[in-house]
């Protein structure tokens, strides 16, 4: 598949920057592999640029398409803003790595 003009080569530094944005702490040996894979995938997706989409509205959900079509009355309906029972706190807290029973606990946020 011909990579077109917009095809970018991701550098190792960019892999590190994206990993940081994604809150991932990649091991040193993972980085070149990820770089290789990302470049192969981005090279492949560059073929989208063959299509002129200047006048096409982006579609983020099919629900809007359905509502605009023959079928109506489904999807994207907002629920009533009303109080409803929620899960029992004790059940939820049981699954957390660390709690004091009322709150989730984490390591300190600001270091001295």
């Amino acid at each position, binding site marked *: 598949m011909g990579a077109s003009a917009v095809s970018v080569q*991701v550098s190792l530094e*960019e*892999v590190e920057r*994206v*990993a940081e*944005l*994604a*809150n*991932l*702490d*990649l*091991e040193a040996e*993972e980085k070149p*592999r*990820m770089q290789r*894979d*990302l470049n*192969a*995938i*981005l090279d*492949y*997706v560059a*073929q*989208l*640029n*063959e*299509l002129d*989409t200047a006048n*096409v*509205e*982006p*579609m*983020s*959900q*099919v*629900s809007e*398409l*359905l509502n605009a*079509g023959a*079928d109506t*009355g*489904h*999807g*994207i*309906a*907002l*629920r009533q803003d009303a109080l409803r029972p929620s*899960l029992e706190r004790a*059940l*939820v807290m*049981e*699954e*957390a*790595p660390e709690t004091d029973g009322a709150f*989730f606990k*984490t*390591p*300190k*946020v600001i*270091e001295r």
Partner: protein
Amino acid sequence: MMGTDLTTETLVEKPATIATLREGIAAGAILATELAEQYYARIAAHNPLLNVYLSLTKERALEQAARVDAPAAKGEELGPLAGIPVGIKDVLVMQGAPATAGSAILKGYEPPYDATAVSRLEAAGAVLLGKINCDEFAMGSSNENSAYGPVRNPIDTERVPGGSSGGSAAAVAANLAVATLGTDTGGSIRQPASFCGVVGVLPTYGRVPRFGLIAFASSLDRVGPFAGNVHDAAQVLEVIAGFDANDATSSQLPVGDYADQSEKDVKGLRIGIPEEYFGEGLDSEVRKAVETGIASLEAAGCVIKRISLKHTKYAIPAYYLVATAEASANLARFDGVRYGHRSSKATNLSSMYRLSREEGFGPEVKRRILLGTYALSAGYYDAYYKKAQQVRRLLAEEFLAAFAGVDAIVTPTAPTAAFKLGEKTDDPLAMYLADIYTVTASLAGICGVTVPCGVTSSGLPVGMQVLAAHFGEGTAFRVARAVEAAQSV
């Protein structure tokens, strides 16, 4: 009628039909509790090799089976799935049962509630046997991305069962459940169903509620059934489909009588055959099997129309941008705070997030989070994410236009039959191309059913994908049933 079947040593075994079992249970010839025990015996015999079940929910299953046996003994009315043993892909939650999503980051997590699809199955009388292996966070096409080891294809145990719902497909093929639930984001029900020779259903977006589904890509994720035949798959869909206030994308349209519709004559139905799905990359034996299926539809009175869906080749690139972008957002919740793995090496909040995620996620999940984060990041958003969404509209509109002229569209489900374990693990792009015929319907939100239509010369199953318009499940089942019937199933 079941007992003798279940003691056989055969790995591949077609489950008895839901109707047969339910009738036996209602008549008192089969006890739901005994049936469940027989399935657990079969699982004990074959799971060590196949690695289908990650955990069993035996206590809950036997209690449920007893709740079926009691009214059955009194001759009372039973639910539509009374006593039917069903397995659940481990991305759907069951209260008190481990939910791993095939990931190490959720090891030990036992969610405090049931997914809607799970509670609907139980309300219909189904006996839920356990949680089934899958690719980590449903990301994969071979089931080799599970942190708990790959599933083997029961038809040929050196081959993959497909993915990401590989375990759900293998479970039905090996009769370790009568039916299973899976999820399909880009082909994760249809492709494994094709590889394992079973029926798999991609319901219309919004048809089956996702409440209780561990999200991968929210604009694409769907929950759907696997079964040994079209009628059974339709029956399970009838139970799990329908509006749920807990899912904002859930449709209020009434649920169809899919099982009845599947039996309707296909005479006069217009079937579109898109040339783009039969081009380069399609295995010749797969093509032959699908063409045999098409010929059987023609023989049954369908009108075959050659059509063109010219944007098809852009579906994989658009899909992998949209899906990974959404995944990068959805998987941000796994941070070691509320559930799942927390790194013991963390010294502060920031390192806790990073180390927990680094230790908990497998390579494919990291790859997709990175790709998605990149596609959404400043400077690249328009070139990648927005572009993919624009192409998504073109693909969806192309399907809408096609369905103005045909009732269903028929294609191969996957370009090849099941490939060997390890064959594609080093080449993510080659793995992504296994979804080349399935991602289109995912992006467009339309529905589909994959049905076995033949085997290759080495005996590997081939699936035919029947696509129908939004909420056209009845038509998809009807066409799939005609293909199945032609093979005298």
